[in-house]
Every structure is written in structure tokens, then in C-alpha cells.
């Protein structure tokens, strides 16, 4: 039973709205099985939107609304993230003070590898996202790290995403209990309700993709990070994955966590893994 009207009502500030959401699911088994989770996750969206081509899910709201898709395609001819992309390309090849460049920190010189991020570092025992790896590369070469939510980081990840465009998302979960725990923690975060609005990521991106919450058409959760980083007309600027998580939290009136904190990296791990096989489409333009 979809609580569509409640969602539209959702922002009066009172926390007195109770949702009785019947949801497709049985009590979770305690054994973590990412392969089965990914399969179920993808099938849920394929069945819910049978006429959306599988690879179209990565286009977020545009896979849900024809009129918006046409506007988006028109903008893609000369997209607003063009400047960030070129700035990223220039920054990527500008050597640090010590003469090294980002290419020295990444496999294949950083070209065409975005689809493998985030990955689980068995040495450190935690999820490493592209944004974290970029800042670590800067610090390893004596440079100050960039803010995770500002333009410089968005330009770098825009360029790296661009070099992977079209490649299927390819996230691996090593046979390591800590990796399974990180995946599960990301899944837990994705389905947990928070903020005074009492929404979880799933409340919007699983229960009601394609519908509107106020003026915005909600993107499906499947492939939702494939287009990162995104130029959002609403921000009239670029947004990294970190910026999107932080703003989503505050929109549900939950105090955001530190960018790149465990929950954010793990939920990025979970969302990227379940989108395995769908193409990278970043950098993206969004409303």
C-alpha cells in the first residue's frame, strides 16, 4: 500500500505523521548474501518499471518522466558540467609541488577506473571511495585535502567518471567478514528512517521513484550513484556524492554526519554493488 499522499504532505515539520507502510519483505535472514540482495534489488525495479530499459535506470528522474528526459537530452548537447569536466581534466594533469600527479596514485593512471570504486581495502578493513582515495593521494603528495562537498573534488571525480562512461559498474566484495559487515551496514543505513520527517533513503527512492515530493521527481535507487558527480540546476553548481548525502539528510531534518564517515562510505558501497552491470553515466546533470 503506497503512502503517496503522506509523502506529498511530508514536510509540515510535525513528527506526528506515522507511516504504515506495508513493504515487500520478510524478516531478514541473519546471513548476509550480497549476490542475492543485488538480484532482488534489481528485479524489484525491473518489475516495478517494466518498460524502463535496464541501463536507463542510471539516468535517475529522467528514466521516470519523458518530458523531463527530453529537456535533459537537449541540455546534454552542451551540458552545464562542461566547465567542471575541463577544470577536472586540467587539475588531473597538473603536477603537485613534488612533481607527481594523480595518475601516479591510481591504477591505469586513473583513467577508466571509476566503475571499480568504492572498493573494500582488506589491508585497512574499510571501504575506500573515489573521493577518499583522491584526498589520500593529495595528502600522500604533501598537498592539502579538498573539501568533499566543494567544486574541486567534484571536478576531479567528474573527469574520472567521464573516462569510465559506459563501462558497467563493477564493485567487488572480497571474501572478508568485514567487507560483508560494511555491505550490511550500508544496507542498514539505506533502509533506516531518520530525521523529523521520519524518511529513510528507501522511503523516497524505493517506495515512490517517478513520483514527486514537492516539486522534485524522485530517482529510483537502482543506479542512483552511477551518474555522480552531478551538476544540479537547483544548486546551480556541481555536487559530489558526499554533498548529495549531506543535503538529503538535512532535507529530512536529520543532522548530517561528517562526509566520508563510515555510514556514508558503506551506503555508497551498498548502492554501487547492487547497481553492478549498469553503465557509469557520470558526470551527470540533474534538476
Amino acid at each position, binding site marked *: 500500500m503506497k503512502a503517496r499522499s503522506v509523502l506529498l504532505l511530508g514536510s509540515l515539520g510535525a513528527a506526528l505523521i506515522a507511516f504504515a507502510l506495508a513493504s515487500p519483505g520478510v524478516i531478514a535472514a541473519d546471513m548476509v548474501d550480497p549476490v542475492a540482495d543485488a538480484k532482488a534489488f534489481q528485479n524489484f525495479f525491473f518489475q516495478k518499471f517494466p518498460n524502463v530499459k535496464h541501463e536507463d535506470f542510471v539516468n535517475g528522474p529522467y528514466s521516470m518522466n519523458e518530458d523531463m528526459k527530453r529537456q535533459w537530452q537537449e*541540455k546534454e*548537447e*552542451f551540458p*552545464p558540467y*562542461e*566547465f567542471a569536466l*575541463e577544470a577536472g581534466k*586540467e587539475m588531473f594533469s597538473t603536477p603537485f609541488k613534488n612533481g607527481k600527479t594523480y595518475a601516479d596514485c591510481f591504477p591505469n593512471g586513473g583513467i577508466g577506473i571509476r566503475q571499480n570504486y568504492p572498493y573494500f581495502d582488506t589491508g585497512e578493513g574499510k571501504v575506500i571511495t573515489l573521493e577518499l582515495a583522491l584526498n589520500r593521494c593529495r595528502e600522500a603528495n604533501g598537498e592539502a585535502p579538498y573539501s568533499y562537498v566543494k567544486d574541486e573534488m567534484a571536478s576531479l571525480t567528474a573527469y574520472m567518471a567521464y573516462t569510465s562512461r559506459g563501462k558497467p559498474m563493477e564493485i567487488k566484495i572480497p571474501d572478508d567478514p568485514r567487507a560483508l559487515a560494511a555491505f550490511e551496514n550500508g544496507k542498514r543505513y539505506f533502509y533506516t528512517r531518520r530525521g523529523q520527517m521520519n524518511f529513510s533513503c528507501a522511503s523516497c527512492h524505493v517506495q515512490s521513484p517517478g513520483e514527486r515530493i514537492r516539486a522534485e521527481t524522485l530517482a529510483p535507487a537502482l543506479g542512483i550513484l552511477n551518474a555522480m558527480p552531478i551538476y544540479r540546476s537547483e544548486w*546551480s553548481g556541481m555536487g559530489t556524492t558526499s554533498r548529495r548525502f549531506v543535503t538529503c539528510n538535512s532535507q529530512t531534518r536529520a543532522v548530517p554526519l561528517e562526509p566520508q564517515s563510515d555510514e556514508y562510505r558503506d551506503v555508497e558501497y551498498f548502492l554501487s554493488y547492487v547497481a553492478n552491470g549498469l553503465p557509469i553515466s557520470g558526470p551527470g546533470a540533474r534538476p
Partner: protein
Amino acid sequence: MASSIRVRATSSGDITEVQALIQHPMDTGLVKDSKGELIPAHFIQQLRFECNGKDVFVADWGTAVSKDPYVKFSFKGAKKGDEIKISWTDNKGGSDTTTAKIA
């Protein structure tokens, strides 16, 4: 220094299609910044495209043109390799110019 103007000019037969994206805030003068003060109007007023010594397209813009403005048009009478000169001026006397070869 990269120019604020990105141009793509492609010709097919006698028709050249020109697309331009310009990095400019296009502030309307009606917007308050985070401290509550009005950001003064700052927008491109005139954008001129010249090819082979004559104007091929002139845009007069107001404050309703989007940030990082985009424009597309086509014209006849030019061929691959010809050069297009693009220049803009804004209401604060700012300006920029660049040239692009027709691909």
C-alpha cells in the same frame, strides 16, 4: 587562461551549426546572498558572432537568461576551417572574446 566561452562549430554542406556555452553568473540583481544582501545585477548584455568579417548572429540578453548561458544557431556561407570570432560584453563593462575554427 581558458576563455569563458566554449564553442562548437560544425559544418555540413553549406550550413554551419554553432553552439556556445559561456561561463557567467548572469545575476539578476533580484537575489539575496546568504547574508541577506542583494547580489547586484551582473549579466551578459550582448553576444556577437562574426565570420569572414561580417556579423552572423547577435544576441541581446536580459536578466532572464540562465547562468552559464547556452545558445545554438546555424548560418550559411562558411566552410570548414573558416574562423568565427565570438565576443560578449556585460552590464558591468566586463567582456571576453575567443575564436573557433569550423570543424
